[in-house]
């Protein structure tokens, strides 16, 4: 019995999961309180939940099992709960109707459970743990996406996410089953992979079944990150889901997806496998190049014609995922790429940096959307009209976040987008034909300028309409947006001024 257990799955210690347990505990307490202490104002739950998840985030950085993705997941979850904190007016109207806050408590507690799932995922070393923790994230997200039961869009989003998500889970499980069948274990490890492929690498043929399992696992991960061809759910779900949930899906869930993808590719990073010229390495690079190219095109070109800000950010999240996928072309970065620590590194570090820049900018953008929705009743880009006149300071903060998403220099978005270009240049050293990706990246990055600037245009070029009052910026929104803007600028400027040879 014991043998089978060790054979099938990796060994873990309890300490690895302490942060996750804390979050589950807090969530349980909040859910109980929601049921039994009716008098407590629901916004208190939001504060408790956000604080606890942010504190756990600090713990994951300082603790023994430091993991950058855990920190990012906690940060993203905490901030998306804060979005919900400033969104109560809409939440109440869409959940219980009117101004009653009944039934909104779970809305603040459930993200904690999802975040616990992500924390487990970042520790996972075998497919069982990956699957279980991923399901924790996904199931909670289904509930959150459809949580506004009086809102048709939210219900539609919930159903779509459920159906498509279930399909992708099925694919992932199928992949896991094939993996077990081909390797005899669930452990993700380069030794396992090398053993399975031994002999076949040199002869140029690879066990088809193994490749199929890897392909299916990748497809499951592509669903979470929103990469083509598994991206179709994103625009509809992002647009329909409650804005705090959209925030969670856009940042925390994407972090989970990339943590998963990194876990899946790490076994292939062995020097034996990822060297250029071998069959497996070529195949991996080709797959990632094609997926990245398609994702870039679909996300960025699709975003060009959007008029709804949330849908725009949905396509943008696909497009940004495309830029991150380019990092995966360099599983073994060539030496010359190591000259600048800000532009190169192992794939998981680069991915983390990109996700951090993306998270900071996207969260700020969603805070703005939530604020505009609460006070102007619309999520269209045109609802941002005239903010440059009525709220110059807020408008500036929004400019910073969208400029960073577009990759305007001196913001962090530029640094990471450049790292993505840089990764391609690096990959071209070994696979010259990848040059076809360069025009696609140039084109899509330029397209980004066009559609992200649509918001900036609405704020500065459009005049406020006669009934438009200045937005009243809630305290929490103001704090988070300012912090995000400062972080984006500082992290984008300082390396440029100091760090290059």
């Amino acid at each position, binding site marked *: 019995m014991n043998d089978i257990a060790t054979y099938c799955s990796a060994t873990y210690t309890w300490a690895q999961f302490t942060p996750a347990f804390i979050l589950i505990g807090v969530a349980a307490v909040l859910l109980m309180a929601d049921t039994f202490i009716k008098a407590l104002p629901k916004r208190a739950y939001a504060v408790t939940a956000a604080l606890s998840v942010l504190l756990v985030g600090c713990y994951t950085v300082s603790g023994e099992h430091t993991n950058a993705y855990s920190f990012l997941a906690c940060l993203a979850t905490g901030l998306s709960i804060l979005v919900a904190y400033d969104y109560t007016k809409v939440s109440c109207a869409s959940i219980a109707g009117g101004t009653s806050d009944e039934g909104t408590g779970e809305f603040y507690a459930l993200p904690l459970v999802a975040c616990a799932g992500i924390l487990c995922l970042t520790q996972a070393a075998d497919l069982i743990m990956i699957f279980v923790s991923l399901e924790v994230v996904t199931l909670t997200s289904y509930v959150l996406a459809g949580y506004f039961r009086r809102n048709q869009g939210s219900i539609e989003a919930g159903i779509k996410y459920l159906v498509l998500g279930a399909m992708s889970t099925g694919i992932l499980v199928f992949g896991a089953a094939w993996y077990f069948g081909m390797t005899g274990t669930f452990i993700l490890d380069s030794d396992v992979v090398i053993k399975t492929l031994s002999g076949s690498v040199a002869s140029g043929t690879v066990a088809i079944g193994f490749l199929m399992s890897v392909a299916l696992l990748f497809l499951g991960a592509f669903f979470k990150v929103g990469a083509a061809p598994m991206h179709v759910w994103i625009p509809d779900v992002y647009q329909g889901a409650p804005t705090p949930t959209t925030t969670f899906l856009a940042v925390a869930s994407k972090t989970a997806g990339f943590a998963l993808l990194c876990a899946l590719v790490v076994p292939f990073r062995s020097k034996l496998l990822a060297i250029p010229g071998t069959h497996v390495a070529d195949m991996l690079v080709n797959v990632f190049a094609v997926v990245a190219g398609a994702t870039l095109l679909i996300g960025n070109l699709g975003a060009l014609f959007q008029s709804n800000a949330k849908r725009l950010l949905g396509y943008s999240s696909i497009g940004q995922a495309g830029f991150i996928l380019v990092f995966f072309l360099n599983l073994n970065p060539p030496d010359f790429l190591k000259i600048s620590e800000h532009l190169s590194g192992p794939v998981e570090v680069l991915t983390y940096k990109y996700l951090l820049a993306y998270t900071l900018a996207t969260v700020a953008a969603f805070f703005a959307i939530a604020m505009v929705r609460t006070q102007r009743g619309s999520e269209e880009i045109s609802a941002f009209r005239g903010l440059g006149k009525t709220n110059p300071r807020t408008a500036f903060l929004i400019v910073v976040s969208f400029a960073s998403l577009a990759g305007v220099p001196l913001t962090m978005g530029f640094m990471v987008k450049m790292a993505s270009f*840089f990764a391609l240049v690096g990959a071209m050293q070994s696979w010259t034909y990848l040059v076809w990706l360069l025009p696609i990246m140039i084109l899509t990055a330029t397209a980004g300028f066009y559609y992200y600037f649509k918001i900036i245009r609405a704020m500065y070029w459009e005049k406020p309409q006669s009934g438009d009052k200045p937005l009243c910026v809630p305290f929490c929104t103001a704090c988070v947006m300012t912090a995000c803007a400062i972080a984006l600028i500082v992290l984008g400027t300082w390396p440029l001024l100091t760090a290059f040879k």
Partner: protein
Amino acid sequence: MLIWLILIPVIAAALIGLLRTPGRLTAITAAAVMLVLGVGAILCSILCPECSKACLSTVCGTKIQFTLGLPFSKIMVLLALLVTLAATIGMKAPNKDAERSWSISSLLLSAGAIGAFMSDNIIAFYGFHELALIPTFIMIGCYGRGDRRSIAWTATVYLGLASMVLLAGLLLLCTQMNAWTFTALKTSVASGMPSTPCLIAGLLIVGFGTLVSLFPFHTWAAPAYASAPAPIAMLHAGVLKKFGLYGLFTLAEAFGSRCGELFGSWNNLLLLLLLGNILWVGYVTVSQTRLDDMLGNSSVMHMGYIFLAFAAVIADKGNNILAYQGAAVLMLAHGLTIAMLFLLTGQIESQTRTLELDSMGGLARKLPLLGFLFGLAGMASIGLPLLANFAGEYTIFVSCFANWKTGATAATAGCDVLTCCINWLNALPWGIGCVFTWMFNGISSGLSAIASVFGGLGAVQLTLVFALWGLVISAIYMLRAFRNIFESEIGHTSERATKLSCADIISAGFLALFIVLFGIAPQLLKPLMNLI
């Protein structure tokens, strides 16, 4: 210390935007402080290059990669400082809100331009320029003349795409040379050249070229300048646009005598394109009926001469010091002149409320000083001796013949790029290649025939012969514009003119002063260039 040249405008912009301090006043103060600091820094680095290195580029013990040691840094920073001050003094915003936005944008543009010209780090150099594009975009879209939104979008798409091409080129260059600063590039040239010089140079020329409005990538520029509010047009056309040329020259200088290996294969094509700027855009300029359109096009046209200097540098394998000097002087002079012209355009518009050349007339009788200042700037733009542009243009013309002997470098006409294209096209199926080959061969033999008629002139010299015609074209449109606006009968629009304000006179006079100063004594600029 140098970092303050960027922090001051940014802080001033923040004060105006966040604390609602009076826009123009804050901007003028910031610009004046910057000018004093900047001139101080420039003098300091001329007088004591070694000791200034430490104090100029260190902040709290951390070394910041700013420098005034690059060949054109000082001169371009000086240009940016002068134009910023003039633009802020001469600002005529329609209302308080607009004045705030204009001030903020001017300051940010200025910060971006100065940052780019001081950066030793190639990526920061690129980044600061991009930063300056945002205020340009917003200002044209908000306060521009005419069909401002589509103009702003066109400019943004052109510049955005060009920036991406440029970034690709710079990244390839930096990775292949294993150097991320201009200084490091210079040292690493000794140990080797990039492995794909032709591709890199192509990307750089298209990228930088679009930003400088090199023919045929120039169509965004004239409408954008014509549409932009005066301070933005001044700063963009006068200062920021020089970024592309600055980049090309700085890279050429870093590659020293090997710059021919990098850019050489594109030189003949570049010569054709710059003739497009001078002649094609020149004639387009002649046909303009509005003053702002005319100036926008004229600015595009004059870029051709600076590109000519670049081509001369490349053709002479980097030894052409005269061409560097001519280009530096002309960049400064053109920046001052076009800024002054756009400034005066704003003043003319506020007096007459029109910029249609046909509906104006006799303005000099109402406002003789305005006529004099416009005349001065116009003459400078044509290249009248004793005004700054002449010094630059003349030096460039002479430099085209530097190190040239009769017949020694006769145009072999078919350039490397053409040969390259022919080989490439021959590989194409369906016989298309043959057609192109035939066309290119035709062009090549045509050019050789022309070259032989001119007694063995080289490609650069031949181009110069055609480019000189541009002087006549400039004279035609500028003198005609002057006559239409200031001479002849007093038009009904000129009747509206009242008087110039003190700020109008000071701002234009300030620029005029330097145009004359550098025209009479261009040698003052020599210490500002760090050339061997």
